[in-house]
């Protein structure tokens, strides 16, 4: 299986610094991108690598680029998180190409639900909500290390 080192503590620190600012931009309480109806915490260990790879790609391709704000401090933190995701995705991608990070039916289904949640909102709202849920992703990554 793939083992990719990712400085979760650094990403956490960057996110914690902007969490209140980002979450305040998301007024919708009734929809979650990552945690409902399926919780990341219910992902089987066999699917973890694939889901991680899909989520890193999701954040790089569909979230960070749509989260520019008027606050340069927030923007700097977002780009430092994005860079961490980019390098982790690159390393995980290599592993994926060597067929060590296979996607089963369940993880494909779960990721489809995440995309469906994302597409319920306009791009900016969906991206900002996804960014505000980074602690949900990091909590899951922490737990499943």
């Amino acid at each position: 299986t793939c083992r990719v080192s990712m400085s979760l503590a650094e990403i956490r620190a960057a996110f914690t610094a902007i969490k209140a600012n980002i979450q305040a931009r998301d007024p919708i309480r009734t929809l979650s991108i990552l945690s409902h109806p399926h919780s990341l915490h219910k992902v089987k260990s066999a699917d973890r690598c694939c889901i991680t790879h899909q989520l890193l790609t999701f954040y790089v391709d569909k979230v960070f680029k749509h989260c520019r704000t008027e606050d340069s401090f927030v923007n700097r933190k977002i780009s430092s998180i994005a860079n961490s995701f980019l390098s982790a995705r690159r390393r995980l991608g290599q592993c994926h190409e060597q067929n060590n990070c296979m996607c089963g039916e369940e993880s494909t289904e779960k990721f489809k639900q995440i995309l469906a949640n994302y597409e319920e909102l306009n791009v900016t709202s969906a991206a900002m909500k996804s960014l505000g849920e980074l602690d949900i992703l990091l909590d899951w990554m922490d737990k499943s290390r």
Partner: protein
Amino acid sequence: SGELYCSLPNPRNVRFESVNMKNVLHWLAPEGTGDGVLYKVKYAVYGVGKWIRKPECRNINRTWCDLSSETSDYEEQYYASVKAFLNGTCSDWMETTRFNPLTDTKIDPPMVSVSSTDRSISIILTAPEKWKGSPEEDSISLLQVYPGLQYNVSVLNKKTKKRWLFSISNNTLVVPWLEPGTAYCVSAQIHVTTPLLDSGFSKEYCITTLKDK
């Protein structure tokens, strides 16, 4: 109740205060209102549609409400909200920010027990337990909640005032090569790297090594 138009000032600073995942909603009374204000409370799981009323916190005059059992699943995140009532009028609902029990709780210091020989002291540390609703419930150590939990331990030689600091992952520490018949004071802190959470240091536990045989 006939809440036609809410003209009462709003409750202020509505927020969760959490220690070891005992999650209590706190707020300040609306500005300029004396006694007699009553409140009601509701909460919601983030990502799920509906608000849920908290019956035990309906028409209360205190400014806190224990939502620990309603927010005990730390894989979820929550909002809570408070509304004030006085003389037939009311305030708006005032919401918290999104509450994540895992990252937004504070952790108490560990329990410390110390024993000594003539040239060493042994320290045993115990992480606090997660809040639980009743004594019959199974205890969950915060060590299970935060697998990366570590301890920072401070050992002070009372005579020379020399201090050592240790960072350990398991919960026992033996400090060797000490001076016989000397007082040492131990204090410990919990450190979680991710999410970043530090407890305060425990109070000092002092012990004197046995005299030389």
